[in-house]
């Protein structure tokens, strides 16, 4: 893989943010938190929303609404990698995604293999949305992850996934005090002092690694010219323990069954090391 360059805290008004370069691919991810009401289907959990947008600054191609569909597909893959508990059954697969730019042609979807076992203390992987609950059934934090692609030199999915991890590490959520006043009404008080903020536990957040098929080989981290040569790709979400948490396929040609296993294994080999490298950098004083 190409070297990765990271910078945290680039967006002052966001709760957390990160800018990531891989090759010439340039993405910014901003995380914002807002107090909202929880979903009626999950009253003890916070909300999560992920969006991915392609800035026209990356290329005139992304002017207007072009690139919107591609962005939505990436967002769906990232969201699925962050929040397993929003889907029934725990281990879920994201929906199939057509090729870049919405070209015609259906492709197959892949189901997750080797799902991690859920533990008593929280979801099996991803973010613990239960921690975002403030007052059960009434208020909770809504976490919005917004990615903006400023330059596309290939491997946008991987870049957004890694930048999201970094932005989540950078995120500070204010402490909240819930008081009930005389009338029995709940009042929320935000403690804005810097020391009072808490951080998310990202230890179970997986990284999405894209493995593409070029000819008969599996290749990772394709640069833009290389992407044009590949017929299909598999985006695999793998956690730090090497377990697969989800997969999405894309491309004009389908993914050959024989390649599927090789691709998944490639992602499983790569992701934990990448996770460790990123976390080591984020926790070092150098940043």
């Amino acid at each position, binding site marked *: 893989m190409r070297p990765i360059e990271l910078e945290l805290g680039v967006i002052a008004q966001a709760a957390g943010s990160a800018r990531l370069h891989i090759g010439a691919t340039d993405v*910014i991810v901003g995380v914002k938190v807002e107090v909202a009401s929880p979903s009626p289907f999950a009253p003890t959990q916070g909300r999560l929303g992920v969006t991915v*947008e392609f*800035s*026209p600054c990356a290329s005139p191609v992304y002017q207007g609404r072009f690139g919107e569909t591609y962005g939505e597909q990436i967002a769906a893959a990232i969201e699925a990698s962050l929040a397993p508990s929003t889907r029934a059954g725990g281990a879920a697969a994201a929906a199939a995604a057509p090729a870049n730019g919405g070209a015609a042609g259906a492709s197959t979807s892949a189901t997750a293999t080797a799902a991690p076992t859920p533990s008593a203390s929280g979801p099996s992987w991803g973010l613990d949305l239960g921690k975002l609950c403030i007052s059960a059934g009434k208020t909770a934090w809504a976490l919005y992850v917004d990615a903006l692609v400023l*330059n596309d030199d290939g491997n946008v999915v991987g870049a957004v996934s890694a930048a999201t991890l970094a932005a989540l590490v950078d995120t500070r959520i204010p402490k909240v005090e819930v008081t009930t006043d005389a009338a029995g009404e709940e009042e929320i008080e935000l403690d804005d002092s810097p020391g009072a903020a808490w951080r998310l536990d990202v230890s179970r957040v997986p990284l999405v690694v894209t493995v593409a098929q070029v000819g008969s080989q599996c290749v990772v981290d394709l640069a833009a010219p290389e992407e044009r040569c590949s017929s299909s790709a598999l985006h695999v979400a793998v956690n730090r323990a090497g377990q697969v948490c989800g997969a999405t396929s894309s491309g004009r040609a389908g993914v050959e069954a024989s390649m599927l296993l090789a691709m998944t294994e490639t992602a499983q080999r790569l992701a934990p090391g990448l996770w460790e490298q990123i976390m080591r950098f984020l926790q070092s004083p150098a940043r």
Partner: protein
Amino acid sequence: MEFVSPEGLRLDGRRPRELRRINCQLDVLSNADGSAIFEMGNTKVLAAVFGPHAVTRRSELREEGALVVCEYSMAAFSTGERRRRGKGDRRSTELSMVIRNTLEQAVITELLPRSQIDVYVQVLQADGGTRCAAINAAVLALAAAGVPLRDLVAGCAAGYLDGTALLDLNYTEDSGGGPDLCVALAPRLDSLYLVQMDNRLPVDTFQAVMELAREGCRTISGVMRAALLEHTQRLAVARGITAAV
């Protein structure tokens, strides 16, 4: 809310005629012909210029000069309250047009017939004065791309609150209910390429606010000029055009 204290200090500690801290970065995107980031306090805008290149829709080809295309977009994380802006919302469309009109006057389009220049402006952080910052970022990007300009146009906004004319309003001041005058000035030509005002303003106060905004434009143009000269010098030395001894 008090916007100007009795000692003459604003909410962020500035004096009424004081600009926020400005920072210009050039050549920030490898793919664009010219690019720049313009920061004014907490407002941060990225601009990218593609072109001049062949016109994408031949029906729009103009024999007299270049076609200037502009799109303004705001990142979802750019505003204080996160708003998921779909592209094509009214404010973005209106600003795209306004910025395009301003830039079209600044670019010497007659020199580039039958071509097209794409200018894309992306707001990364919004804290008041985004349209002015957008214009400034775009002008920097155009200059970095080598597009001929009539002048180094700069944009600046001014308002009037608590009986004082204020330069360069931030978001809180902007929402204060007072008038907001946004102006783009070509300093050498002393020509206004954009005048936009929200809310009412009595004529004599208008003069004061307008003069303040124009002064702000001149100062900003000077800062932009310094950044561009430094960048030009760097490129020239790297290219070996000047003898470095």
